[in-house]
C-alpha cells in the first residue's frame, strides 16, 4: 500500500485529534496538576504538527513536479503471485486467531502452510511435506519442550 505523504499527514492529524479528545476524558485528581493526560496530549500535539509538516512538504513537492495518485498498491502486488502470497500469509495469521481454538494448532497450521507453499509454486507433495514438518517442529519445540499451551483442538485425545 503506497500512501502519499499528504494523505498520511491527514491521517496523523486525525490520530492526534482523537488522542486529544480521549486524553481530555482521563480523570484528573485534585491537587495534582499533572496527570495521566499530560504526555498523551503532548504526543497528540506532535502528531498534529508532524502531519501538518508532511502535508506542507508534499504540497510543495507537488508544485515542482506532478505527484502520483493519493493511494495506490505497491507495484509488486500486481505482478505474479504477489497479492495471492500476501493474502495467504495474512490468512495463516487470521486462521490461527479465529479457527485454531476449536480446530487446534496443528490442523490449522498444516492446511494454512500448505496453501501458502502452493501459492508460492512449490510442488504439491513438497508443499504438504514441508507444511507437516514445520507444524510438527513448532509443536515439538513450543508445546513439547517449552510447555506453551498451543490449542490442541480436534487432536486433543491424540497428542
Amino acid at each position, binding site marked *: *500500500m503506497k500512501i502519499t505523504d499528504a494523505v498520511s499527514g491527514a491521517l496523523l492529524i486525525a490520530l492526534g485529534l482523537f488522542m486529544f479528545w*480521549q486524553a481530555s476524558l*482521563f480523570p484528573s485528581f485534585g491537587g495534582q496538576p499533572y496527570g*495521566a493526560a499530560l504526555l498523551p496530549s503532548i504526543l497528540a500535539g506532535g502528531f498534529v504538527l508532524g502531519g501538518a509538516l508532511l502535508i506542507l512538504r508534499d504540497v510543495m513537492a507537488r508544485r515542482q513536479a506532478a505527484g502520483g495518485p493519493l493511494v495506490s498498491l505497491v507495484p509488486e502486488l500486481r505482478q505474479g*503471485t504477489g497479492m495471492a502470497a*500476501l493474502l495467504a500469509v495474512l490468512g495463516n495469521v487470521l486462521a490461527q486467531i479465529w479457527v485454531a481454538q476449536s480446530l487446534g494448532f496443528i490442523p490449522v497450521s498444516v492446511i494454512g502452510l500448505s496453501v501458502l507453499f502452493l501459492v*508460492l509454486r512449490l510442488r504439491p507433495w513438497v508443499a504438504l511435506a514441508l507444511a507437516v514438518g514445520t507444524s510438527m517442529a513448532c509443536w515439538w519445540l513450543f508445546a513439547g519442550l517449552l510447555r*506453551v499451551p498451543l490449542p490442541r483442538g480436534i487432536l486433543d485425545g491424540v497428542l
Partner: protein
Amino acid sequence: MGFGDILLQAALLVLDPQVLLTALLAGMFGMFVGAMPGLTATMATALLVPMTFFMDPIPALAAIVSASGMAIFAGDIPGALLRIPGTPASAAYVEDSHRLALQGKLNMALGTNLLVSCIGGLFGVGVLIAAAPLLAEFALRFTSYEYFWLATLGLSCAIFIASADPLKAGIALLIGLAMATVGLDPTTGVPRFTLGQVDLMAGVEFIPAMIGLFALAEVMRGVIRLNHNAPPPPMPAGEGALFKGVGGVIRRHPKNIVRGSLMGTLIGALPGAGADIAAWMAYAVSKRFSKTPEKYGKGHVEGLVDASAANNAAVGGAWIPALVFGIPGDSVTAIVIGVLYMKGMNPGPTVFIQNPQLIYAVFMIFILTTLMMVPLGWAAVKASRQVLRVPSRVLLPIVLSFCIVGAFAMTNSVFGIVIMLAIGLLGWVLEENGFPVAPIILGLVLGGMFERMFMTSMIKSGGDLTAFFERPIAAGLGICVLLIWGMALLGAVRRMGKGRGTA
C-alpha cells in the same frame, strides 16, 4: 564481596554446560538467520526471545548475545557470494566483497571479514567492560532529571543521526511513544487507550510487537517480492584455505582495524544507532582518509576491514547504555532490555551493585561468543553454498510459523498473535512509505521510562521547567539535546530556503 569472588561467581554461572550449549545453538541459529538474505540480526533476536522467555537470565542473555553477534558476521557471507547482504549491516561493503570474490579471492574476503569481525567484536566488548562499571558508578547519583534528558537524548539521536528523513523518523518515534502510553498510567493508574480491552490494560506486549515489526512485516515484504522467473544467482568459486592471505591483510591495515572498531563502538553506544550505521560511517571515513579512494567499491579490501570491524564492535558498544541506563543502543538491545525487565533484572546502575556477578557473566559470555565466532563462522562459510540454495519460498513460510507460535507463547493466548498482526501490518505500510520502523521500537521501549521520569520531574518541580537545568549534569545533557534540535531545525529551514530559491 571482593572482585575475585564476583569473577568466580560469574565464571561459575557462565561455565554451566547448559549455558554453553545454549550459546552454541543460538550461535548456529544466528549464523543461519544472518546468512539468509532478507532475514536480519534483529529478526534472529526477535524469534529467539520467546524461547529465552522460559530460560534463566544467564542462558537467555547468552542466547541473545551469541545469536546477534554471529548474525552480524554471517551477513557478510551472501554479500560476498551473491552480492546480496544477509543483514543491512553488511550492505556498506557488499560491492567490494563480491568483486573480490569474482576475482577469485572469495576466501580471502570472507576470512578477512571473519577475523576482523572477531577483533572488532572483542574491541567493543573491551570498551563495554572498561566503561560500563565506571559509568554505572557515575550514574548512581542521577535523578529523574538526568534520566529524562538521557532518554530524550537517545530519542533525539534516533531521529536526527540514525535516519535519512528526520520528519518521518520523528513521526515513527511518536507512534512508538504513543503505543507505550496504552494501558494503565504509571503515575495515577488510570487506564488509557485500552479500547475497553482487558488484555490491553498491561500495555502493548513488547515482544509480539517486535516480532510483528521485524519478522512478520519482513515475511510479507519477502513473499510479495518473490520473483519466480529469476534464475538462481551464480556463486563464484572459493579456492584454497579460508584464512590464507588474511594475516597479511590484517598486518597491512592495523590502523583501519583500530579506527573501525573505535567508530563502531562509539556509534553502537549512541542510542538509536547500531551496526548498520556504524558500518556505513566507518566505510565512508575509511574512503575519505585512504590513499587510494578511487579503488573503493571495486573490490578493495581496505574499506571492508574498517566496516567489518565497525559493525561487530557496535554490537558490544550498544550494550553500554543498555546495561548502565536502561537505554537501548540499537534494536537488538531494545529487545534485551525487554528481556531483562521480564527476568526481574531491571537494567540501570543498581544492577552493577546488587548483582555484579550477573553483569560480569554477561561480559564473559560476550568474550566467549566472540571467540566462538571464528570456528562457527568457518563452518558457516564452508556450509554456505548448500545453505544459500534453500529458496526464500521455502524459508519465509517457516519463519511465519515461528512468528505465530512465538507471539502466542509470549501471552499464552491468541492476543499475542493479534498484536503481532496489527503492528506487523502497520510496520509494513509505514516502511513501504519511507517511515523507518526502528524508532517505533525505541519509543515503545523507552516510552515507559521517559514518561515516568518526565512526570516525576514535573511533579517534583511543580511544573517549573528551569528545574530541568538546575543540576549540572542534567543541564549539560539538556543543552546537548537543545543543540541537536537547534542544529536540525536550522538545517531544515536552510534547506527550505534553498528549495524556494531554485523553484
